[in-house]
């Protein structure tokens, strides 16, 4: 019950900002579009107008949620993981390579293998900056950021020169064998069942972080390293583990994207999901379950915006504007900060 109230508080906090942004946005839309009400109806509800739209909404939220939940682990361990994008790409690439390398294996073997190597690749990409931080105090913001570029370029090389489907014009790999395609969510065709994984993992992440000794050790290491050491927490190990989980989650997001949505690796498949998920995690106040909720909300806005653009003459840029405003206002408090503390 208490946990629920806590959660409610975490979720309720940004509601004011959302309302304010929506209001400001409405004024903006009204000043431009002829039918602001229609525009807003599309923005908020078009995602639920058809199963198809709903599926796309789910598909949008899934990678965001998975990466954001991962980032929560890193943050809780005191690591600022800006590397979600690179971890995502490597995870997607690893799953693709595995699926293309052993197409003969039965799906029930190959699919878990693909998922596993995806997680491993992302986790490895989280492990490097974590070790450098723990052993040599190398700033993780720099390393994770730089490793993003490395991962993007590396996967770009692979997809263009080794795995490319030469029958199409795109920078896309050969299609994965259908045996490893993830099924859709029952009843919602084309909605990736990876979303269910995200839901389960959000809850699992919450349990791990707040209901296990491991979680409390990670958080102790993240808030006061010397305290952690003193009370017998292997702090360095926990930080590294949390980063492996963090990278692994992003890698999983990539693998599940490939297996559930794209069915092959595509260069530029991510509109900066890593960075958006970072925002999502921060807006969710670093809580895994509210990260899931925030990811859903964010996806709602993103996809709703597209419908708004299609249905009315509201320009696409207005949406970016609204999103920016939303992010900007979401952590603002409407009261002046107390001057001490």
């Amino acid at each position, binding site marked *: 019950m*208490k*946990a629920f109230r806590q959660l409610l508080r975490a979720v309720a906090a940004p509601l004011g900002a959302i309302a304010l942004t929506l209001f400001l946005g409405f004024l903006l839309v009204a000043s431009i579009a002829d039918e602001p009400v229609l525009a807003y109806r599309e923005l908020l509800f078009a995602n639920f107008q058809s199963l198809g739209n709903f599926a796309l909404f789910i598909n949008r939220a899934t990678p965001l949620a998975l990466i954001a939940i991962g980032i929560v682990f890193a943050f809780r361990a005191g690591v600022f993981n800006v590397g979600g994008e690179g971890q995502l790409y490597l995870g997607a690439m690893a799953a693709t390579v595995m699926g293309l390398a052993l197409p003969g294996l039965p799906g029930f073997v190959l699919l878990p293998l693909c998922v596993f190597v995806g997680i491993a690749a992302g986790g490895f990409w989280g492990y490097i900056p974590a070790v450098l931080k723990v052993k040599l105090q190398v700033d993780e913001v720099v390393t994770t950021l730089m490793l993003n570029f490395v991962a993007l370029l590396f996967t770009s090389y692979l997809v263009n020169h080794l795995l490319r489907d030469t029958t199409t014009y795109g920078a896309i790999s050969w299609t994965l064998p259908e045996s490893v395609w993830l099924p859709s969510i029952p009843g919602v065709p084309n909605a990736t069942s990876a979303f269910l994984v995200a839901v389960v993992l959000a809850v699992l992440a919450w*349990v791990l972080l*707040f*209901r*296990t*000794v491991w*979680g*409390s050790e990670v*958080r*102790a290491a993240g*808030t*006061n390293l*010397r*305290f*952690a*050491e*003193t*009370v*017998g*927490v*292997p702090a360095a190990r926990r930080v590294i583990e949390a980063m492996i989980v963090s990278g692994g989650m992003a890698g999983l997001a990539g693998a599940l994207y490939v297996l559930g949505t794209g069915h092959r690796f595509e260069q530029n498949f991510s509109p900066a999901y890593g960075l958006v998920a970072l925002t999502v995690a921060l807006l969710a106040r670093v809580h895994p379950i509210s990260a899931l909720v925030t990811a859903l909300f964010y996806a709602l806005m993103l996809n709703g915006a597209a419908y708004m653009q299609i249905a009315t003459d509201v320009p696409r840029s207005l949406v970016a504007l609204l999103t920016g405003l939303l992010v900007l206002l979401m952590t603002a408090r409407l009261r002046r900060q107390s001057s*001490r503390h």
Partner: protein
Amino acid sequence: MDGSTAILTLQGIAKRFGDKEALKSVDLSVAPGEVHVVCGENGAGKSTLMNILAGIHQADAGTISLRGMPVSIPDPIAASRLGIGMVHQHFKLVPSMSVAENLYLGRNPRKYLVFSNRAEMERRAAELIARYRFDLDPRAPVGRLSVGQRQRVEILKALAFDAEILILDEPTAVLTPPEVGELLDVIANLRERGRTVLFITHKLREVKAVADHVSVLRHGESVGTHLAAEVSEADIARAMVGRQVFLSGRGADADKPRTFGPALLELENVSVSNASGRRLLDAVSLAVRAGEVVGIAGVDGNGQTELAEAIAGLLPIQAGTVRLNGRAITGTTVPERISAGLGFVPEDRLDRGLSPTMTIAENVAATNYRRAHLLRGGLVDPARRDAFAERAIREFDVRGAAPDRAIGQLSGGNMQKLVVAREMARRPRVLVVAQPTRGLDIGAAEFIHSRILEAADAGAAVLLISSELSEVLLLSDRIGVMYRGRMLAVLPRKQAEEERIGILMNGGEAQAA
């Protein structure tokens, strides 16, 4: 003393933080050129009151009069213009900057209008240092200074702008005994120069040593001002706490025969060096028996911290053996030592002792998840954990605490109680306690003392490390003295006259070992 001659008069000062009434109604009158001590329990509102005088907080009600004129003090600059300077309980220094830069922080002398005039700044700093005969290098970065030196920088910072009234908030809490002596001299010196000093302390000895007047705060109210010469330490303690306080320990009845069990904590020639090869512990040997309290005295920085950390498993031991309950634990990890029966109260609660942003429940549970059965099916059971914390809060009388509050919001004394509570909860066979009452009021200190003694009575071996010689003398059955990483002597309490310990602490009489 009547208001007309007073340099500073406070009337009806009140202050609340949210729903917490920190100050209800405080009256205070301070004569020019006196040393006025303010005491009170932790959380009585002393710091809050002084912060109001220093312009850091604003009073909700009441008046402040300076030399008979009512004044308002909206910010620290205004306070300094009015001649009020404050040395904070928690140092307010910038570690990377030099002494001179810290002294003139926010008020750098300039040249060519826009540039800092370093030469001038360092010259003035040197002058100031010389005037008060401090031993400080104006160019040394503050981060490299010892605690006592930093304290002096803080004092100079207040004096740099000709503070007529100098406020010192618990300046002695972190000082070594010799440093305390020097500080008291400085205060006397200031009084001679006609400065008025407002001095907050929990150490009643100091009150007797320097104060002209002593005022007592309790629960945000002033409960009286006395001539220091006319009241005893016990009187002040009673006024503070509202009841009689007995400071008792084993030292007081050292003659009483005691029997101890087998040695539970044994150190044999333990040596520790730092990365650059300097010996921090030099072949230290020591044994603490079941039921015994062994106190370690010594000037801070002679290896006491390292001794505690080496036992706790936080420093790698290069040579020698540590045995706990007869079993060698030299190379084992912290959790292994904890499960072997070690309890450890580190010297700095905010550094190693706690994670301030985590909840009270989590902090108290940190070393107890498995032993105290806080898990169910491998998962943390929040109800059990909260109940566990609840029990600690009750047993240790931690005021204003609830399991789900961040522990950093508690006062220092209350935090300290919870650290001790956490370590005692396991009923450790060996308990290492460092600086257990630093910054605590006399009531809280008495309480912690009695818990430490109870642990020993129940059969634990207690190693007490304190820079407070009186505390060591009060509690210990035997007393070890450390000097430059070596254990110079371990004396039975009866042979440990204060004077002899003092000589040992300064490295004298090395052959006594």
